[in-house]
């Protein structure tokens, strides 16, 4: 039964939607997104959110701090999945909110909204674990092909996930890109989701004013400086670029005399980086305020049950092997044992304890 409000309330309480429902919401989302251009034009006031990476409880924090959709307008800059433990719930919630309030929330594509990235960085594994097959992953990654590439607020603030591209000088050129496909290995679409600005540090002082791009050490996209940013804003009559894609310990970073800013919305990234996060609140007159927050308090978060992620038996076996190998490296074993290693590896042949997998 199609009831978006019901789906949304299930998702707010972190209940997984059935596979068939996921299929339906992705189909409907594709139809909706298809009609939206590569660049969406919207009006302030609006709140811009950076990478969330499956940190569902921190997304709930964002709604608590910034206001729930549709009371607050939102622009999400991509990277909804991977790394965190609740990528499925996160992207499902945002997709349902988009279907329910299409003019109140904008979702653009990040570099993680890609089949090859999600197969390496966690989303694929999470879908398989939660649904027993890869269908849900397929539905979502097919839907990702339809996400837009940028948003412009009040004809002044350009929002994109990564950064600028040497192949793109105008907004019109971005509008001409065929975005309905997997993110390619190179080209303007790749650059928009992978590029980074050069930091302001003295190491790069001489590069900041270069008029050419540098190849990015990330393996895709480019790195660009102040001069390139200034020119892009000037040619396109824009006032500011707001992007995400880079972890900021303080939750946000402002560069190039406020021509560009980075907003990062995943606090304590990967549950270990210890960073703050922020959301950018843009007021009706384009006033910008970074609302900084830390990770949601432990008593409000459900820590994942470790047996969900690690097979208890193989962990015991791992520990056993760890002990054995550490002993060898620390040379704590008897002389006889060392001489045995070359001859018959008895030390490592604990057949009766080893699961079949290891034999």
């Amino acid at each position, binding site marked *: 039964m199609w009831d978006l409000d019901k789906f949304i309330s299930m998702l707010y309480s972190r209940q997984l939607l059935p596979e068939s429902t996921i299929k339906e919401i992705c189909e409907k989302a594709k139809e909706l997104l298809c009609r939206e251009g590569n660049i969406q034009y919207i009006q302030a006031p609006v709140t811009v959110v950076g990478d969330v990476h499956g940190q569902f409880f921190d997304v709930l924090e964002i709604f608590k701090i910034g206001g729930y959709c549709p009371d607050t307008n939102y622009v999400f800059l991509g990277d909804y999945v991977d790394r965190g433990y609740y990528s499925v719930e996160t992207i499902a919630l945002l997709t349902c909110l988009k279907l329910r309030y299409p003019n109140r929330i904008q979702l653009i594509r990040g570099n993680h909204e890609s089949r090859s990235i999600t197969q*390496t960085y966690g989303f694929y594994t999470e879908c398989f674990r939660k649904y027993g097959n890869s269908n849900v992953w397929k539905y979502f990654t097919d839907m990702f092909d339809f996400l837009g590439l940028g948003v412009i607020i009040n004809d002044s603030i350009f929002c994109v996930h990564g950064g600028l591209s040497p192949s793109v000088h105008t907004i019109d050129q971005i509008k001409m890109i065929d975005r309905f496909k997997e993110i390619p290995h190179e080209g303007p679409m790749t650059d928009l989701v992978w590029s980074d600005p050069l930091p302001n540090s003295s190491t790069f002082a001489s590069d900041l004013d270069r008029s050419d791009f540098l190849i990015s050490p*990330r393996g895709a996209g480019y790195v660009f400086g102040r001069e390139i940013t200034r020119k892009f804003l000037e040619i396109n009559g824009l006032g500011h670029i707001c992007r995400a894609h880079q972890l900021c310990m303080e939750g946000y970073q402002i560069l190039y005399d406020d021509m560009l800013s980075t907003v990062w919305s995943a606090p304590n990234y990967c549950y270990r980086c210890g960073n703050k996060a922020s959301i950018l609140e843009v007021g009706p007159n384009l006033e910008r305020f970074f609302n900084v927050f830390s990770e949601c308090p432990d008593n409000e978060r459900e820590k994942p049950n470790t047996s969900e992620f690690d097979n208890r038996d193989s962990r015991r076996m791992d520990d056993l092997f760890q002990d054995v190998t550490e002993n060898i490296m620390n040379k704590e074993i008897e002389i006889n044992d060392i001489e045995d290693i070359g001859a018959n590896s008895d030390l490592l042949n604990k057949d009766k304890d080893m699961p079949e997998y*290891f034999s």
Partner: protein
Amino acid sequence: MNITTILKETKCCDLIKGQVPITIDSTKSVEEGCKELVEHQFTSAPIIDKSTGKIIGMLDYRDLVAFILLVFTKEKDGQDHKIFLDYDRGHKIKYIVENASKLSQEDENNKLSIHLLADLSLKNPTNTLIYNSPVTKAIEIFSNGIHRLILIKEDGSLYGILSQSDIVKYLASIFPVQIPGHTNNSIKWELGEKPISLAKPEFNEVITIDRYSSVMDALRIMYNSTISSIAIVENMGTKKILRGNISMTDIKEVIKNNKWRLLWYPVGNFFEEIRKMQEFENNGLDKVPVYTVGAETSVIKVIQKLAVTKGHRIWIVTEGDSLLSVYSLTDFMKLLKSELDKNQ
């Protein structure tokens, strides 16, 4: 200005100005030596005998892998220890194994000394060159598969280490950043501007491994095939879809974090763990899972990507992630050498 002239007139020492060569004390233990390699992010380093100041060999990740394969393998290989094809290496390893306990007792800190591991792997026999030789001479040596050269001064003392990566870095820097559709190179290099597929028309047979095989299997294949990286693929009909890659140097993540259990993981999972650890160390900056270029990318652009990513090889793909070939630093050295020979 053409590329041949530039390479002839530039000296090897110019490429590594300001380098502080890292050396390893021959009396250090295996763990300490490898930890030092890891800390300084080198894949090999010369081992110096403290008492004489002489360079007695190079320590390389392949040496460490040889050691791991020996100690941790479950294969019963019989008395002759013929795990390894080369008898001399096997002999050396046998010596270590049989005498490890005695040797470690001689060493004051009761550790297995690193000089025993030096040069276990044939890939880095000690090679030296006078520091002010032209770069063309280094390229000639590198094109034979040598990865690293020890540059010495006239008096025989160590000037620094020149690697294949240093050549690539230099070449990348003398051309402007290549942008698709623009050719604005003031230095003449016809081949450089051609697609990589034309530079090497015969694509090599790439050695691949399925994501469910174990890391130890991967190490074994790499060691026996004398390659330093293996592609993790998913077979789809006749196509092999590139899903990741594992290199000998990934072992450093195991050492650094003491995660020896990872050696028994399926290689696909190991790859994910490695990427996670690397991202954490890289201030949360994520990278593409595997460094790739399309078959149409120009040679110069490929070199620039190799230089920036500090990779030792790059994978050539078509139509998304379908694996076509691999291009290693040695392949580039061979390419450069044939260019230089052509223009003689």
